């Protein structure tokens, strides 16, 4: 499970403001400067999508918007790359199935 860094010899994270968001309707709290994927990780959510063919669980891999395994439905929009999209207050984040063509 992901967790927030408490002490760091070089970086400072503690002053960041909390940001409220919703995952599958459930209220959660991230922090300013989070991507959607990092906020979910900090809340213990690692399975971000499912593989198209076999429905296998997928997390994020590259964190630079390249590999596509982190795509989710954000505020009703499918296939958002959650690893490069910043978390904003009151975002609604949901898991989608595969390419999610039929969910729009």
């Amino acid at each position: 499970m992901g967790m927030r860094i408490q002490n760091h010899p070089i970086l400072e994270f503690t002053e960041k403001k909390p940001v409220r968001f919703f995952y599958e309707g459930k209220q959660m709290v991230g922090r300013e400067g989070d991507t959607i994927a990092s906020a979910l990780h900090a809340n213990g959510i690692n399975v971000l999508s499912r593989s198209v063919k076999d429905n296998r669980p997928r997390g994020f891999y590259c964190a630079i918007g390249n590999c596509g395994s982190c795509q989710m439905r954000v505020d009703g929009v499918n296939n958002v790359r959650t690893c490069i999209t910043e978390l904003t207050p009151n975002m609604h984040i949901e898991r989608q199935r595969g390419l999610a063509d039929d969910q729009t």
Partner: protein
Amino acid sequence: MIKHEELIIIGGGPAGLSAAKSALEADLNVLLIERYVRLGGQLIKQTHKFFGSKNQKAKMRGFNIATLLIDGLKDAPGHLTVLTEATVVGMYDERIVTVWHDATYKKYQADAIIVATGASEKFLAFENNDLPGIYGAGGVQTLMNLNGVLPGTDIIMVGSGNIGLIVAYQLMQAGARVTSVLEAAPRIGGYAVHASKLRRLGVSIKTRTTIKRAIGENKVEACEIVSLDDQWNIIEGTEETINTDAICIAVGLSPMHQLLSMAGAKTSYISELGGLVPCVDENNQTSIDGVFVSGDASGIEEASSAMVEGRFTGLIAAKKLGHVTKGFDKDINECRDQLFNLRRGPCGLKIREGIRKLREVNDHA
């Protein structure tokens, strides 16, 4: 509608930012396109101090170099437009690109383009390699150093090149435990100084060892590691299961050639440069007139060389568009000298060999 631009730079990392600076200093109008929300590329997550000489910002931490490069664009005479959260999704004939930005597709046509798209992390084939909890080492560096979130508490690093060693050390700095660093080769790939730092912290670096499979339901819970013989074959019976909640893959980078390939630029597979790379001339111009490349997209090196290549390519592109700067020859020679120095010695052997092969391919074309 297609909007016209003088110079488009794709990618706002060390190469793209440095290219933008020299192009702006030559009084060019520049459109800089970046996929992420902010500029800086992978520098923004790099907390370690750089090696090398002062010319390449040695002794500065990566994220501070990013700030320096971004600030350096402010006072230049040329006009700069920056698009962030903008992905170039297509590149076509006559230097036309399609950009996905602000939920719309935008088209631009440029007099010159510098592709500075960087690299992507390579993947490794093993059973269950798609389980959540398996990340690119660079991905983990982003998660912890940019977002302040750890991927787990007991971590396995696969690969002992400089990225593997540095990210393993940074994981320890951030409070996680790296239980092992695995290296399939007989020797550690990265600099001894990084390996020593890890060993002093008690991290075991296992050479001739690789990951056989990951174990877990919805998330990595353990992994099986195994010893390799001289021919890289698995030695049966040496399997060992280690509990882990995150596995980092640091097995190298591939140049992001995709846009250039799409536009029809000639490429060649050169393993020393990281895979498929554009065939460039001595001015970093691809086989397409007016389309240049710099940084990792032209072959995997360090951010230090990406900055020099960027500066170089920016000057060349400006000259191509009729903006020859005062001191052009001196600046170009300075860049060439710096690149020569960065690629010198045993650590530069691979890149020198790669560049030699690339020149050979060009000569036979």
